[in-house]
């Protein structure tokens, strides 16, 4: 039996950032990690993966990127190195190879049962991230047996897949990047596209993330959004981090040779059915992009930046040929489900979750006093699930946590 003040579950960037913030306040804690530090970055990323945010945006409490390529995009291996370095620097108290089996409420505190022992604490921080468990649609069960199915977390490189045609389902960041890589390696690729967020890599000479950071979009707060549920469900940005800073949108994918179809909607025998709504989703993405660029241009004008920047422009409309609505599955060898993630918290008490299994929280403060969650999409601000977002969130949640501990202490005395 081990007793400490705070139990942090997960030693990725969120758990480490929280550890640093607690150390700064001299609050005792332990960080539990099912694998090694930065486990997901080590084991659940494909070989060529790079961050889609520029390196200068890799900023954690008391540690930031200091390499010689601030405008470049780190590889997954470099992220691992960065987080390893962080862990050492902050001397985070981590127990690796420790899986959490349950977190139970005991009085005003918590008992966390793990594969390496039991930990009692006054508070718990869930920092397991939002990308652990792929959401595979029910359609998966209807695919013919010959098809090899996998999710992006299992994908490593084009050579690891069979020879034939690949259907990538979902045109968010992962789906678009994987379709792009497969196509560049000479594979025959079909990409099924539903709702997506289109962005140019650079605009008026600046990285699009620089714009979103500067204009304040990434710091938009959860309690200022008109529809936070919708904002939290936004597909990930159709971007890639490459030295050439190229744009990865549907026009680019089509030019590269990727076949585009609508949302994967059904299976009938050995025929895959795709929605006829493809054009509408493209229009919607183009409109959204236009609004973002309008916001950027307004900001630039208001802040006198126009003289230093290239002129405003608008990307071409998404123009792709009329997409077929059916595909013969006998001609498909592999299906990659780039269809996002679902919540998976069998170790949390049921009343902490909503009817869809998501953690109930108010800006990261869970419904049970003393429990917090970090790293979920738009938990407190738009960048909450990004590398650059966990630091500010952790700092604010530690304030809340410290007050909670003080309340407990004053009740006890």
């Amino acid at each position, binding site marked *: 039996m081990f007793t400490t003040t705070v139990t942090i579950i997960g030693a990725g960037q969120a758990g480490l950032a929280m550890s640093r913030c607690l150390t700064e306040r001299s609050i005792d804690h332990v960080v539990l990690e099912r694998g090694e530090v930065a486990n997901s970055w080590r084991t659940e990323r494909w070989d060529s993966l790079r961050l889609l945010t520029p390196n200068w945006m890799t900023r954690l409490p008391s540690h930031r990127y200091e390499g010689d390529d601030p405008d470049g995009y780190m590889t997954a291996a470099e992220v691992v190195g960065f987080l390893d370095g962080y862990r050492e620097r902050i001397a985070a108290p981590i127990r690796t190879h420790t899986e959490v089996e349950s977190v139970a409420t005991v009085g005003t505190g918590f008992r966390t049962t793990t594969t390496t022992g039991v930990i009692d604490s006054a508070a718990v921080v869930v920092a397991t991230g939002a990308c652990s468990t792929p959401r595979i649609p029910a359609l998966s069960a209807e695919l013919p047996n010959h098809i090899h199915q996998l999710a992006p977390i299992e994908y490593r490189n084009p050579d690891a897949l069979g020879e034939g045609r690949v259907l990538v389902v979902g045109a968010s960041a992962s789906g678009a990047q994987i379709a792009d890589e497969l196509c560049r390696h000479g594979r025959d690729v079909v990409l099924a596209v539903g709702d997506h967020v289109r962005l140019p890599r650079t605009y008026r000479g600046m990285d699009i993330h620089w714009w979103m950071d500067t204009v304040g979009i990434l710091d938009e707060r959860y309690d200022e959004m008109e529809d936070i549920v919708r904002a939290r469900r936004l597909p990930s940005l159709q971007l890639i981090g490459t030295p050439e800073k190229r744009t990865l949108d549907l026009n680019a994918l089509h030019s590269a040779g990727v076949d585009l179809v*609508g949302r994967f*909607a*059904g299976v009938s025998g050995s025929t895959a059915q795709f*929605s006829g*709504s493809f054009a*509408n989703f493209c229009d*919607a993405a183009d*409109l959204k992009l*236009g609004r973002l660029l309008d916001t950027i241009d307004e900001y630039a004008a208001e802040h006198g930046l126009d003289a230093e920047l290239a002129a405003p422009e608008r990307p071409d409309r998404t123009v792709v040929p009329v997409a077929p609505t059916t595909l013969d599955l006998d001609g498909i060898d592999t299906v990659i489900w780039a269809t996002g993630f679902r919540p998976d918290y069998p170790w949390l008490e049921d009343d902490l979750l909503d009817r869809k299994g998501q953690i109930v929280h108010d800006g990261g403060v869970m419904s049970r006093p003393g429990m917090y969650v970090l790293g979920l999409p738009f938990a407190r601000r738009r960048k909450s699930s990004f590398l650059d977002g966990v630091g500010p969130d952790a700092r604010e949640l530690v304030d809340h946590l410290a007050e909670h501990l003080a309340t407990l202490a004053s009740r006890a005395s």
Partner: protein
Amino acid sequence: MTTTTDTTTPAPTVPAEFNGVPVEKLRGTIAKLTDNPELAAFQFTARNEWIEGTGTESTMHEWYGVGTDHVHVEEFTAKADHPTLGHGHGPTPQEYVLHALAACLAAGVATTAANRGIALSRIDTVVRGRIDVRGVLGIDPDVRNGFSSIEVEVDIDGDAPREALDALVTASAKRSAVFDIITAPTTVVIGTTS
């Protein structure tokens, strides 16, 4: 201190309807169904009776929703027939599909505009569906029975810039029942009552 009997003007009332859409009622319904998803299970019914040849008439009256049975304000009817092989009872069934799409999209445009506070004066929608009739006539098995493509033109006049008006259409399609019915597979089970 002196008090004056001032004629305080009452707070401006939110109009009950915007573009003819009861916005507050709509928002209230959305809130209610968010908290009670079982009330969101609806069912619509059309009863069709044969007249002669390819001519029939449907009646749409009863519907189910929000936990109970309802009827429309009147028994609505619609007739259909074939243009060259029929007796002129009505347009073709596939034209009803085009009408359904136009109606659903336009209703969505009006509602979305109301939600966004955009006043509209006109929504004109033209829907065209192309069909190779060798499919339905059984002449060529590689030709599908249904429309090979559908094109929609929406012409909107309202109190907003052109881009904002155009955006209403895209938003409407995103939330349109008929658009979804047409563009995504829907299970249809056909049985007979003997």
